[in-house]
């Protein structure tokens, strides 16, 4: 089939356009700041647009990683480097409102600050690093009982008020809260290691504490496995529950009663916990990502994350040339994974920025003036108003402006237009080939 179409292929000329070497980074979390710094260090002008009033993103609420690294000094360092960099302009309170132009020369408009004053930025590369948000689920008496917290809140208690942790005798953690459910089938990826991180930190402060982790599947991928082992050695009790019979929770004054079925004992166990920690994970910020996807015309996954052009071949590229994605805007990730991806984006973007022109491929429509009847159908059909009737009285399509959709081709009654790379004879050759096999 493919061969039949290649036989009909004609020599093509790539369209090249000059490239504007400015970069727009949307989102000022760890990923956005990392990409911005890498690119600015190479001497490119970066505009970093952040929706909120400060940089840092979700990681501002994380104090330590599983490996024990301090996150806050790292973020503070990133923020000051970004703010002081001569090639980075930080725009906080920025809401992206419009976008136009073509690859290599984009124009993005935003409304800034409480006055909503409008500003337009010209850029050739766009990095989307808009992150994800803590899952706002309210299961298991999270709102009504003080002893119930998310893992993020627990992490804060451990870091800020360790004396509270000394008073906890029994701690229960429930995994997969609001993740891997019918409403949100996605795995949040970070929760297994977060539970282990918090459990080990609790035992560090209060070695006598009894910790139960109620899980559906533990996935401490890579070297995280060592910490899982360590947690088991230190006596953390891991109990599997099934999605059909989740633990039940009953607030009891300052404490909370958690009842679950132990598969080995085959019976129900009730623990009166001083703290119940829910691994609520993260979800895509649907409002934000849906709006950006509409403005920039980018695809998203069913869960609302931005979808890369190809999982294996182009993992940080988006389908529009010059668009890249980094961090949790793409899928749930640990901080170090977000940083790796942000660095990958900077490297990919530089392969474009190192050149003076951008290569757009050859898929542009071409008019055969001998066949053209100047009926104006293409002029009316084109969603981008590219075809025009030239001085000779025939339709003409500027290949540099053509987006390559082929709508004029299918509408043209005289068949005077062909879309290069997708010519009619190539499509028909594929059809013929399929049926040659089938009908043989």
């Amino acid at each position, binding site marked *: *089939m493919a061969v039949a179409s290649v036989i009909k292929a004609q020599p093509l000329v790539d369209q090249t356009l000059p490239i504007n070497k400015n970069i727009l980074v949307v989102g000022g979390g760890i990923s956005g700041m990392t990409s911005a710094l890498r690119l600015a260090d190479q001497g490119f002008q970066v505009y970093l647009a952040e929706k909120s009033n400060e940089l840092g993103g979700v990681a501002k609420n994380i104090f330590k990683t599983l490996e024990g690294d301090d996150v806050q000094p790292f973020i503070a360092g990133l923020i000051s480097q970004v703010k002081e960099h001569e090639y980075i302009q930080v725009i906080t309170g920025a809401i992206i409102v419009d976008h136009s132009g073509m690859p290599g020369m984009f124009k993005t408009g935003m409304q800034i600050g409480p006055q909503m004053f409008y500003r337009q930025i010209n850029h050739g590369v766009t990095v989307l690093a808009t992150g994800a948000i803590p899952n706002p689920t309210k299961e298991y008496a999270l709102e009504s009982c003080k002893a119930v917290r998310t893992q993020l809140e627990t992490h804060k208690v451990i870091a800020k008020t360790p004396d509270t942790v000394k008073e906890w005798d029994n701690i229960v953690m429930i995994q997969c809260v609001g993740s891997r459910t019918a409403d949100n089938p996605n795995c949040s990826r970070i929760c297994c290691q977060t539970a282990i991180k918090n459990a080990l930190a609790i035992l560090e402060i209060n070695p006598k504490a009894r910790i139960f982790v109620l899980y559906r599947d533990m996935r401490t991928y890579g070297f995280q496995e060592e910490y899982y082992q360590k947690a088991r050695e230190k006596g953390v009790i891991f109990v599997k529950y099934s999605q059909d019979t989740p633990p039940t929770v009953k607030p009891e004054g300052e404490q909370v009663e958690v009842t679950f079925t132990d598969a080995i004992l085959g019976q129900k166990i009730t623990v009166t916990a001083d703290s119940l920690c829910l691994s609520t994970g993260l979800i895509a910020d649907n409002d934000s990502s849906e709006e950006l996807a*509409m403005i920039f*015309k980018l*695809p*998203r*996954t*069913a*869960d609302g994350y931005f*979808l890369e*052009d*190809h*999982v294996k071949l182009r993992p940080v590229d988006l*389908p529009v040339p010059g668009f890249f994605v980094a961090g949790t805007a793409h899928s749930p990730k640990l901080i170090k994974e977000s940083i790796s991806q942000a660095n990958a984006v900077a490297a990919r973007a530089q392969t474009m920025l190192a050149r003076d022109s951008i290569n757009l491929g050859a*898929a542009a429509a071409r008019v055969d003036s001998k066949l053209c009847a100047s009926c104006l159908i293409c002029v009316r*059909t084109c*969603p*981008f108003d590219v075809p025009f009737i030239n001085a000779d009285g025939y339709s003409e399509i500027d290949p540099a402006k053509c*987006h*390559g*959709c*082929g*709508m004029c*081709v*299918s*509408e043209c009654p005289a068949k005077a237009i062909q*879309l290069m790379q*997708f010519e*009619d004879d190539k*499509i*028909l050759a*594929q*059809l*013929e080939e*399929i*049926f040659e096999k*089938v*009908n043989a």
Partner: protein
Amino acid sequence: MENFEPVIIAFCCHYCAYTAADMAGSQRLPYPANVKIIRIPCSGKVDALHIIKAFENGADGVYVAGCLEGDCHFKNGNEKAARRITYVRNYLEEIGIESERLMMVTMSAGMGYRFAQTATEITEKIRKLGPSPIKIAIAQ
């Protein structure tokens, strides 16, 4: 025509259904081999001619898979495609081919599951309809 295996042509838009097919692959979702995919840059590029040629050659079913409403990469190619499909369906009825054999479906690039499910459902639907009148005529 015993052991009838329908042949179905799927014109898939590069920005949605074609990527969704990739997604179905990486999610290890099976779909019937009866569906033969032809990649196009936009569902609005599918010509009435291509559809008719597919039937003429013996296709039992044809579908055009474009982006979700409002999501077209080129503004409105999917709407244009839907209108054209309605037109060609009427034409098919006129020449004695069941219009159910031609369909327009929409999905987004992330919908690997929907791609596999659509391919399976359409194959089953066409299998029930039986071989297309043209295919029967070719066989005789």
